[in-house]
């Protein structure tokens, strides 16, 4: 088969085993995505009325991606790369087709046996969705066709010039983003009085969402035209920024940063309630993530009980500002309570930090995990119920009074500004600390504690400081949470909070402030926090699944995070450069040793 199909010029034949393997994985992915319930769960969310829902999108991208992956040409140095040709198209087609076969088997299975007991999503709804409500004889050929076609398209992508590929993915992602982000765009348009635009763009009849077919096509054309108009200037600018000397890069970063700051202050004025609420949540978690970034990212202390400090901040604020605190209710002003929040956070940081300070890595993680739960259980306990209200928590936390403004949950904009203030503070502090002596002590301690000590660094102090600074940021976040929600419950401080913040930090990029900001915006903004809905409310029940999948993917493929720090990416470049230099070196020494003997 290979011999007849492979173009005669190719030096390495297409690896059919690999194509088949990817086809198998494609089929498995399709079946498991179906059985997880994503297509049915997301089917109500229309992206393009009436042809495409988010549910179908979850199935459609799979054969496309696998068709592409199955036909990727592996380039090895010194081995002449295989020329891709007709065989590749066939391979892509095959991979897609195998996915279609997987779905066929699933449909037949759904039709014949009922194993709904263990598999809740083995449902008639799934069957109806897969067969387009027209029975097997319609569903099977259609899916085989769609999957094979998409696999083929995936393979064809390799044949296109890189520019075309980039434009296509830009258009595809752009259209999908506009469709998925409808709520935000609506909200934004209202603020800018551009309702006519969204009215034209979206279907908006009978409460249904989504683009219309016409608007999708027009949007795609506009998006495709954009790169032509800009003529690759954006990419050139990004490249220029990347290669610029550090001085210039710094200046550009500052300008960028200023622009973001202006946007942060200005935008909420015109934004509606939904987006402001989302942004307030993003801010709360950004504050937490910035703190954890110092503890884990800079000082290298894997603290899995970080939520404890969040709880301490929330409860301290509630006790001091609520009219309803069971034991002691001075009803102080938020600002005064904040002073105590700082003190309590520092005390908590020292109390939890001190006993674990001599532990390393995994031991530290396990013990802090325990401490995190202990703190929550204490607040929940009957023993402390007279002070903290047990499972009922503390309610009626007074709104924050700042002159003419009142910060309270019913006004998300005010909450956002409050949290923005703390985030700005935390970002500034993190940034200054990173370049400071303490920051260097943290990094040295993270890398090699003993040697750090030999350099004269007091590693115990450095680690305690990391705990205290991290704890303070988390406690501020807790204070804002109390003011926002108007109450605190032990339920808000489950272990999941620690885990999600950790994922935000890892996905964004450990030890990288910009990365942590992007991570919070993307994860908390789009997927949502542990108890806070994100932009995609439909994802609510799959949130943790996606968090988990994302974590695995990032650890395997991009351990440096979404936004690698400028230095890191330069190091990666240097790695390549170094390899050559290293090889040159070896040749030299070999020559040296060879001469005398």
């Amino acid at each position, binding site marked *: 088969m290979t011999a007849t199909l492979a173009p005669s010029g190719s030096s390495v034949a297409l690896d059919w085993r690999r194509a088949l393997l990817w086809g198998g994985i494609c089929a498995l992915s399709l079946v498991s995505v179906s059985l997880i319930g994503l297509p049915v769960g997301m089917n109500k969310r229309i992206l393009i009325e009436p042809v495409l829902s988010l549910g179908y999108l979850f199935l459609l991208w799979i054969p496309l991606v696998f068709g592409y992956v199955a036909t990727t040409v592996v380039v090895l140095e010194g081995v002449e790369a295989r020329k891709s040709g007709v065989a590749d198209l066939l391979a892509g087609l095959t991979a897609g087709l195998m996915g279609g076969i997987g779905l066929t088997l699933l449909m037949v299975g759904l039709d014949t046996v009922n194993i709904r007991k263990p598999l809740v999503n083995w449902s008639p709804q799934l069957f109806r969705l897969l067969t387009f409500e027209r029975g097997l004889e319609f569903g099977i050929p259609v899916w085989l066709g769609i999957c094979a076609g998409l696999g083929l398209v995936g393979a064809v992508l390799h044949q296109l010039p890189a520019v075309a590929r980039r434009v296509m993915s830009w258009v595809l992602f752009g259209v999908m983003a506009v469709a998925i982000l409808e709520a935000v765009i609506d909200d934004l348009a209202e603020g800018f009085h551009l309702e006519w635009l969204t009215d034209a763009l979206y279907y908006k009849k009978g409460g249904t969402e989504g683009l219309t077919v016409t608007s999708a096509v027009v949007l795609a054309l506009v998006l495709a035209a954009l790169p032509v108009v800009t003529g690759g200037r954006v990419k050139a600018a990004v490249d220029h920024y990347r290669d610029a000397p550090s001085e210039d890069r710094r200046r550009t970063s500052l300008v960028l940063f200023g622009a973001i700051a202006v946007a942060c202050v200005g935008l909420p004025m015109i934004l509606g309630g939904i987006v402001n609420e989302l942004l307030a949540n993003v801010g709360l978690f950004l504050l937490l993530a910035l703190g954890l970034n110092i503890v884990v990212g800079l000082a290298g202390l894997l603290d899995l009980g970080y939520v404890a400090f969040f709880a301490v901040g929330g409860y301290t604020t509630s006790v001091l500002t609520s009219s309803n605190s069971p034991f002691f209710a001075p009803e102080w002003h938020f600002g005064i309570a904040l002073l105590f929040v700082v003190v309590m956070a520092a005390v908590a940081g020292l109390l939890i930090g001190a006993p674990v300070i001599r532990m390393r890595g995994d031991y530290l993680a396990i013990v802090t995990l325990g401490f995190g739960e202990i703190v929550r259980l204490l607040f929940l306990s009957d023993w402390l119920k007279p002070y903290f209200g047990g499972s009922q928590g503390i309610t009626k936390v007074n709104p924050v009074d700042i002159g003419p403004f009142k910060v309270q949950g019913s006004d998300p904009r005010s909450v956002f500004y409050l949290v923005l203030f703390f985030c700005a503070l935390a970002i500034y502090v993190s940034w200054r600390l990173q370049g400071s*002596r303490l920051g*260097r*002590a943290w*990094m*040295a301690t993270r*890398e*090699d504690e*003993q*040697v*750090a*000590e*030999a*350099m*004269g*660094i*007091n590693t115990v102090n450095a680690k305690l400081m990391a705990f205290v600074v991290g704890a303070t940021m988390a406690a501020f976040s807790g204070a804002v949470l109390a003011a926002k929600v108007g109450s605190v419950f032990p339920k808000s401080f489950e272990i999941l909070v620690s885990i999600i913040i950790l994922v935000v930090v890892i996905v964004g990029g450990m030890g990288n402030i910009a990365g942590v900001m992007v991570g919070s915006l993307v994860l908390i903004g789009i997927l949502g926090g542990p108890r806070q809905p994100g932009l995609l409310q439909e994802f609510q029940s799959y949130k943790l699944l996606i968090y988990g999948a994302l974590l695995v993917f990032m650890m395997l493929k991009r351990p440096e995070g979404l936004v690698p720090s400028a*230095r890191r990416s*330069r*190091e990666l470049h*240097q*790695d390549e450069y*170094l390899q050559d230099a*290293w090889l040159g*070196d070896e040749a030299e*020494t070999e020559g*040296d*040793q060879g001469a005398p003997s």
Partner: protein
Amino acid sequence: MTSGEASPLLEFRQVNTHYGAVHILKDVDLSIYPGELVCLLGGNASGKTTTLKTLLGMVIPTSGEVLLNGEVVNGKPTSFRVENGVTMVPENRRLFKRLSVRENLELGAYLRNDRDGIEADMERVFGLFPRVKERIGQKAGTLSGGEQQMVAIGRALMSRPTVLLMDEPSMGLAPALVQQNFELIQQINDDGMTVFMVEQNANMALSIADRGWVLQSGAVVLDDTAEALLANPEMRAAYLGDDRAD
């Protein structure tokens, strides 16, 4: 180089140390004079690294006195001793692997505040090791073994020490590099630095050292000039012979 008059820079008086209940150093007496190049020899687990850590205050003696410039420093932290001119190049170099070469050097100067002085010292390190300058932005973990050794020594020099403690500087280096490394140590010593070096490579170490001690199970069994140690039959059998077998 030894001057009979001068008082020792570093001194151990009857030092004993324990790890938990285990007795490591046993009544150790040492004295290192300014400008000397001295070495401590001994087999595996004889307590050489422990000696250095005790000098640096990372291990606290259970009895006896550690003196720095004639002052008892038993209770003083590591930072005090680093500030007063004691620095160690650790065993196996142990650079901060994920930090850049520059950051490694800066960390060597962690306790210093004079920015200009630090810059000047960094230039001095570059003068000594031009290669280090070429690699300044690179992650230390990606350096070759020889380059790592340069950075490790450079890092130690960044604290502007008066005495350099070196833990097995030749460990893990290619034979050609070992020779080069000892020449470098000799050169640093010629420039006025006091060097206290721990070695298993007794032949090499004694060929450049002024004096030496031999440590066995935590006790000093020989204390003599380098020539005398090289000629000592006991020594030849126990250490120098081993060396040749290697």
